[in-house]
């Protein structure tokens, strides 16, 4: 279990959740195990749902970062330091955009790994999020300290 391999539990898509309009054979020239590509032996649908929810949770985190960044640039009072509000808000908004793209790439690689029965790839997103928030926090301390000095 420590390897993160979850593709060992695999079921065929049952008729109650299958899309009758979907073709059984993959389109020519595309990998049959890519995300959104139907294959004969698909991963358990619960894992796919869980992967989707993880993507959505990261996406909401991105939206929260963007909203916080906008609030920092628009609602905070002006600092003594020029560009103080932008120094705090813009990195948060940029971090939100980066996390949004990374969460999609992560969802896609997880989906591919599940279809191939491979271990799930490690995600760098928690590290990026922690580092980003730490940097913005330190920036806030520096701006507040310089403003008081």
């Amino acid at each position, binding site marked *: 279990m420590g390897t993160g391999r979850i593709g060992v539990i695999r079921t065929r898509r049952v008729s109650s*959740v299958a899309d009758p309009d979907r073709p059984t054979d993959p389109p020519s020239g595309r990998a049959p195990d890519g995300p*959104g590509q139907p294959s004969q032996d698909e991963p358990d649908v619960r894992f796919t749902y869980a992967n989707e929810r993880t993507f959505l949770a990261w*996406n909401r985190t*991105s*939206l929260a970062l963007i909203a916080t960044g906008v609030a920092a*640039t*628009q609602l905070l009072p002006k600092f003594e330091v020029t560009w103080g509000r932008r120094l705090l808000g813009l990195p948060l*908004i940029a971090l*939100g*955009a980066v996390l949004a793209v990374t969460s999609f790439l992560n969802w896609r690689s997880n989906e591919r790994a599940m279809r191939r029965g491979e271990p799930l790839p490690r995600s760098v997103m928690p590290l990026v999020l922690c580092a980003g928030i730490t940097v913005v926090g330190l920036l806030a301390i520096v701006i507040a300290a310089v403003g008081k000095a």
Partner: protein
Amino acid sequence: MPDGEQVDRGRARERTVLAWNRSGLALVVCTAVLLRRLWPLRGTSQMVALGVTAAVVVVLAPVVLVHHLRRRGRDDRGPLGPRAMILMTAGTVALAVGGITLALATPA
């Protein structure tokens, strides 16, 4: 009477639908904050930010609605393909672009 696996599968779907709802709400709130700060418009950059935000709403609202309806009741077609994720990601990035434009347009 459905067996255990069927019940669990149904709940997984329900949790996912709720997650989509929460994401839709977060998107609405984020868009509303941006629009609130954009109005009244001052200059070209704010009009660009408003256009980006409006495009996000116009594109993403039908997507979320269609997927919600698609998963309602017994008309379940299983997990979504990558198109919905790409649109959600594109919408979030577009909101970030709108936020950055607004931040740069506001006096420091």
